[in-house]
């Protein structure tokens, strides 16, 4: 089938993209929370393949020009692979090996550093892990809710339908940002990082169910009038059997497409929450709280590398939208 092959490329790329963030500890040269207060807002390091002895395949990492000119002597360090550095946990074990690094006291800041001299590359990787995890988990939560409520609403109809649909519409019109501000004010001030993480997943997930729920309800509404469903009912099939065997499968394709569309939306929602200080808090990185610093005009116009999380967000969105489009196309061809 042709759609299988077109689906393969975006799916594989996305898997690779996620793999990068899953392996953040291995790929990140430094602890994302470690501050090097002598090096705030250092520009990305530049690479040097040439020195007095000619060309090297193994590049040297040199401090950025402005820094080299002012304070530190120009010293370049050779890039090394599989170096030992700070310890991180992965798959339930403690590791210290990293893909790349430079010998101390050199520092490799391939994406520069932030206001506290923390390595942007490491923060981008760990921030991505959190942002993407929040996006994916929130999608799971909201689609589960959407499926449950949408199916009940569409299948049972009548007052159940009206009640649930009314509820969903009410959900859509509430001004969420203000609601969240009020919610944060009511919660205890001291929340651990994991509690905040779950809270953000819960909040985004429970806010996003209304739209997909209406779609699913529409599908269920039409599916339950299909001849094969009516026939099965005529043969005495129970509601549970009908829902499981005939109706739920017909919504699977839409659910998948919805998931692909919602993930980037929810990742962006996390970024927005953290941008306003409502999401994951310092020193744990997320793309949103990394971008929050760009609220300052001086940072926005002076340090372009602080925009890196925005590019990561764009890449994520483009890949997921591509996947969604391919999915939808293949579903269409499938249904015809």
């Amino acid at each position, binding site marked *: 089938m042709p759609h299988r092959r077109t689906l393969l490329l975006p799916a594989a790329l996305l898997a690779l993209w996620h793999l990068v963030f899953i392996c953040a500890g291995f790929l990140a040269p430094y602890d994302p929370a470690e501050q090097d207060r002598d090096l*705030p807002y250092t520009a990305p390091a530049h690479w040097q393949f040439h020195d007095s002895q000619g060309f090297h395949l193994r590049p040297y990492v040199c401090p950025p020009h402005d820094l080299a000119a002012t304070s530190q002597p120009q010293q370049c360090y050779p890039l090394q692979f599989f170096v030992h550095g700070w310890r991180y946990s992965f798959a339930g074990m403690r590791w210290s090996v990293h893909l790349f690094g430079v010998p101390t006291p050199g520092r490799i800041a391939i994406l520069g550093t932030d206001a506290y001299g923390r390595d942007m590359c490491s923060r981008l990787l760990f921030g991505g892990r959190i942002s993407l995890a929040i996006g994916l988990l929130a999608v799971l939560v909201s689609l589960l809710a959407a499926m449950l409520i949408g199916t009940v609403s569409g299948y049972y109809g009548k007052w159940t339908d009206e009640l649930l649909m009314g509820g969903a519409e009410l959900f859509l019109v509430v001004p969420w940002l203000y609601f969240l501000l009020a919610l944060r004010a009511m919660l205890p001030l001291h929340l651990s990082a994991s509690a905040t993480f779950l809270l953000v997943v819960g909040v985004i997930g429970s806010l996003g169910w209304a739209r997909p729920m209406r779609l699913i309800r529409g599908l269920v509404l039409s599916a339950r009038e299909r001849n094969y469903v009516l026939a099965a009912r005529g043969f005495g099939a129970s509601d549970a059997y009908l829902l499981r065997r005939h109706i739920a499968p017909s919504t699977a394709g839409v659910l998948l497409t919805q998931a692909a569309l919602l993930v980037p939306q929810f990742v962006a929602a996390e970024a927005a929450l953290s941008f306003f200080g409502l999401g994951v808090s310092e020193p744990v990185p997320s793309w949103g709280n990394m971008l929050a610093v760009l609220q300052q005009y001086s940072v926005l116009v002076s340090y372009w590398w602080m925009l890196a999380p925005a590019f990561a967000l764009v890449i994520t969105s483009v890949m997921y939208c591509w996947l969604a489009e391919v999915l939808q196309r293949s579903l269409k061809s499938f249904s015809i």
Partner: protein
Amino acid sequence: MPRTVRLCLLLQVFAILCLAAPSPDPLQPKEEVQLCKENAGHYGGRLVVGLRAEPKTLNPVTAEDAVSREVIAELTADLVHINRSTQQSEPALAKSWKVSADGLSYTLKLRRGIRFSDGQPFDADDVLFSFAVYTDEKIDSPQRDLLIINGKPIQVTKLDQYTVHFILARPYAAAERIFDSLAILPRHILEKPYREGQFLQQWSLNTPPSHMVGLGPFRLKQYLPGQRVVLERNPYYWKADSAKRRLPYLDELVFVFAANEDARLMQFEAGETDVVNRLSAQNYSLLTRQSGPSGFQLQDLGPSTEYNFLLLNLNDIGSSHLPDLERKQAWFRDLRFRQALSAAVDRDSIVRLAYGGRGTPLWGNLSPGNKLWVNSAIPHPQLSLEAARQLLKSAGFSWNSSGTLIDPSRQPVQFSIIVASSNSQRMQMATIVQDDLSKLGIQVSVVPMEFRALLQRVFQTYNYEATILGLGGGDADPNAEMNVWVSNGSTHLWHLGEAHPATAWEADLDRLMNQQMLTLNYKRRKRLFDQVQRIIAANLPLIFLATPDVLVAASPAVGNFHPAVLEPNTLWNIDQLYLNRGAEMARSH
């Protein structure tokens, strides 16, 4: 001929523009104007300044917010004025004053022959009327507190048309500083509404400009809601320059509104405004980098009088609600815990990262910017994690196997710091403190919060554990700090509404602060206030962090630009600021 027509048109426009601003009235022979020593500038031009909000009122008696007061300061004048540059009081509407030997009575000689902005004369009756209004209980002016000494309002009597006599209930140090920023009101305009009980409705933003009369360098010309306030020269202003020409030089002073500092910076960069009052270090260095050959006038005036600090909640909260906070307050109340926090905070990093190196670390409540009063003998202990650990150990704290600090009842030590999300410097300070304290095994969470919500927690509900705030920036005199250090003061932040001083050192502070208020001799007062600073630094009710430098900028056209550390930093000598014609013409083309 099209060319002549154009020329005529230009001339006409020019004539209209000239008519638009009143020219200064020639000096009268009997008028006792104040002569200024600054370089003589030239007349004309409009100076545009960005303001962070719209004024709420133009009534000097009822205005509470700093923005309204900033505009009002240009429209009105006071009897005695604090020179923002020297930080000393100097004559204003009163040309001289005498203090009796017991410090209880002040005799002020007023300037003769000077006039309000509508041309009406000023005399002692205006002063009497003004003080009647300020001390009126029904009006309830925010300045009233200042004028009530020992429970009694200051008494004012008129000795003759140009002499007034003030009687204080008890001696009050530097009492002449009270007169600063107390605007003298025009009796001929406001007495009738005052008698009719209409005073509170006077001089709102809807008042026609002709009804707004004052003694300031400018008078109201136009107010466009949401856009700008336009002030024009007061043609009868009572100051003249060294060449005996009446001030101010500027035809117009315009305030435009821009809510945040970045917006004000962009307006300044675009040439829409001429002066920026306080810049963050980041924006200052941005301007330094962008400043071309024509160059902005950028000045780093050194440390401000503001102090930023980490505040731990020591309020009495009652045991029923907030049990968690109650438990944490046991740590906060332990001096050794506070000392340990203070020893572990890297103030140099705060200055370097939050203020871009343009600031000064602080260990006491006065910054070196307060030249007259700072106690330079306050110790500046070095950052030392080892000392912090020793202090915690001696207070019964210990560490578990994962390095977390645990208190004597085996609970992990963790607390939250609430910070105003709009203040990026304080956000940065909080993140640095968080990182520093993590090295002691203390888990701190930083909670950004809208500023008003934060103030509500600090002042009303007491539902917070710690916060980072800043105070100061006003008058440099110790009396301005009374409400912070006296135990029943309204800004006694760490423990508000204390009936009695909770600790012996707070009782000492009360005694010393009251004593310095009654002491008239500067040296003796300084000794008392030095002691106050020493007690504060030793007991750390606030953990002082840093003070930013005062950073200001003006366009190259602004002449006589001599910004000061005290507020209003750039506009304090507005009557002497002028615009260089060449630069002004270049800008208008």
